[in-house]
């Protein structure tokens, strides 16, 4: 499949040059002293907390990051390649609330988190289970990181996401993961999880994020260096200007990672979008989100780095047509533009605030459809089917043809939730809406869920770890 390109080659170079100029002349604030010291030693000019990046340094360092890497799952069949021609879908992240048709909107709990791990485990189109589908508000903050990791490792054998909160949590994540995945050195060779660390936009990084970035880089663990610039609020109102701010933040973060450890795997991650100017808040369902997704994909390709963007994103408060079309817009753009890592591919409502069970299932269907589009077609004799066309000729049918029988399961996407039946049959089945079908589906998946087996010794050690956290 070819890639959709938003900008011309000359335009990309201008964006890149403008970014480097911003990094060199405006600079970025790093509140974290160890980061400033390292950047100073590499040749950055420092003024207070502000760091000015020489153009050459940035270009040199970002070239050192790998263009793709693999996440190694507990079950090797579920390994995920990040980069190249691949697209990986990862569910919602960071939602403080959850929502479903039965109980409505409420603060997320550890039970909800676990349910989302199970759902992400069960849906074949989700490649990685995620790391913070919802905030487990019912347990102490000091336990949350360990509990999330424990659930992610025990309830699924897919790769997962690690701590994106700070250096202590990052260290804990690596400590817990090494119970299952081996020593730090082994994990650096075969990383089982990826974490997301964010800039403090505009043009800064705070202590916690910077500390975690350096810990992960030191360990050679993959991470997303992510910027969410809000056009008109934390960045210029133009998507062009916002792209410069986003780009400068990501490149600054990546430069830091490569100075900590050459070749540390990173994902070039941009999720900038527009302000909703009636309220001065972030809008993620805006068409400008799709613009930024396409632009981010192209910039990532320009730098030869794996790239994150898009998602099943909506500002809608409920599972309605706004939620559906906004989500598909961004998912489609991510798919067509060549994004490799799509965080928030399932469940998001209300601009990241809520994780919906029903939307999780509906978005999973979108993921399936996008994967089908992404797979692409091959121009081969078998696929072109000239013989079959000749054989059937005019006025015949293909339904009974061996070619159809042989290929239809691979060729045509089979929807899980979509209603394609005729009216009277649909009516007989209870006239169920998409939301009602999604509600039934998530319950069915949770009911059928079986925990993947784990080596008893590892399990014992993990249980021991989590008990010590709970009793602390």
């Amino acid at each position, binding site marked *: 499949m070819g890639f959709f390109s938003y900008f011309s080659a000359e335009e990309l170079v201008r964006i890149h040059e403008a970014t480097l100029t911003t990094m060199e002349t405006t600079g970025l604030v790093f509140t974290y002293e160890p980061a400033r010291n390292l950047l100073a030693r590499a040749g950055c000019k420092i003024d207070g907390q502000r760091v000015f990046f020489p153009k050459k340094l940035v270009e040199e360092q970002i070239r050192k990051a790998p263009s793709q890497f693999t996440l190694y799952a507990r079950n090797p069949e579920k390994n995920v390649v990040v980069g190249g021609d691949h697209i990986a879908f990862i569910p919602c992240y*960071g939602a*403080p609330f959850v929502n479903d048709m039965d109980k409505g909107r409420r603060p997320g709990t550890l039970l909800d988190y676990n349910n989302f791990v199970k759902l992400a485990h069960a849906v074949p189109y989700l490649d990685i289970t995620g790391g913070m589908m919802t*905030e487990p*508000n019912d347990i102490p*903050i000091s336990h949350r990181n360990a509990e999330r990791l424990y659930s992610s490792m025990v309830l699924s054998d897919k790769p997962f996401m690690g701590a994106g*909160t700070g250096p202590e949590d990052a260290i804990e994540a690596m400590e817990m993961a090494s119970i299952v995945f081996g020593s730090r050195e082994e994990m650096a060779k075969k990383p089982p999880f990826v974490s997301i660390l964010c800039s*403090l936009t505009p043009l800064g990084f*705070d202590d916690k994020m910077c500390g975690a970035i350096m810990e992960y880089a030191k360990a050679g663990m993959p991470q997303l260096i992510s910027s969410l610039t809000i056009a*008109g*609020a*934390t960045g210029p*109102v133009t998507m062009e200007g916002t792209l410069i701010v986003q780009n400068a933040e990501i490149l600054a973060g990546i430069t830091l990672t490569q100075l900590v450890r050459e070749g540390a795997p990173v994902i070039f991650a941009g999720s900038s979008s527009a*302000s909703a*100017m*009636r*309220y*001065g*808040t972030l809008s993620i369902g805006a068409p400008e989100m799709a613009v930024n997704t396409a632009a981010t994909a192209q910039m990532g390709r320009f730098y030869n780095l794996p790239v994150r963007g898009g998602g099943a994103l909506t500002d809608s408060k409920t599972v309605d047509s706004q939620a559906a079309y906004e989500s598909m817009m961004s998912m489609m753009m991510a798919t067509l533009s060549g994004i490799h890592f799509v965080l928030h591919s399932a469940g998001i409502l209300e601009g990241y*605030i809520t994780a919906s069970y029903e939307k999780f299932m509906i978005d999973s269907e979108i993921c399936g459809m996008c994967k089908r589009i992404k797979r692409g077609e091959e121009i081969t004799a078998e696929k072109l089917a000239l013989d079959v066309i000749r054989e059937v000729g005019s006025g015949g049918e293909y339904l009974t043809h061996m070619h159809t029988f042989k290929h239809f399961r691979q060729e045509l996407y089979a929807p899980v939730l979509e209603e394609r039946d005729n009216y009277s049959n649909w009516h007989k089945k209870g006239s169920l809406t998409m939301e009602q079908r999604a509600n039934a589906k998530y319950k069915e998946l949770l009911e059928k869920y079986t925990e993947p087996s784990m080596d008893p010794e590892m399990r014992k050690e993990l249980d021991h770890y989590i008990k010590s956290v709970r009793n602390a």
Partner: protein
Amino acid sequence: MTDLSDITTALISGDGDKVCRLVQKALDQGAPAADILNTGLIAGMDIVGEKMQSGDMFIPEVLMSAKTMNTAVEILKPFLSAEDMSSAGHIVIGTVKGDLHDIGKNLVSMMVESAGFKVTDLGVDVSPEAFVKAVQENKADIVALSALLTTTMPMMQQTIHALVESGLRDKVKIIIGGAPVNQEFADRIGADGYASDAGSASRLAKQLQG
């Protein structure tokens, strides 16, 4: 004489230079500062508030009017008596400890200031003790707490707890805002109000003082 409605119109269109020029002209022509403030400026901000609610004005336009308003008030200040200056109240505002996000908080500051409140902005990463101290020292009528992170939401509760402990709780109204919080959370932690954006924060503050 300068027609004060010209000031109102220029304020609504966010034309700072023109408003300052007209305010200066009105003063030169002998218009009482209090009239310029009430009939020209405050009346303008009331219209801005209405237009924002009805969706006819967008946030960057509202903020430009608010900024203009604040500059014009600075010109008028030397000519206003203590009585004219009597503010709508004193608000202490800040982002709670552990949280470094300040854009929403700054917008609220600007909006309540243009609505006639005196504002003491404590910045970001403000400890409960610093809030208590500022409320005490400024004899604040309202304390406004901001948080963007789910992990710093509990710090709002701890800040309220510190105000209770210090015996100030009954003397001050507490309002909260930020993306992850809502009315239910405000009720749960014992705040007096919640506002979802800068415009409604300003209305809420006026309502609590009213």
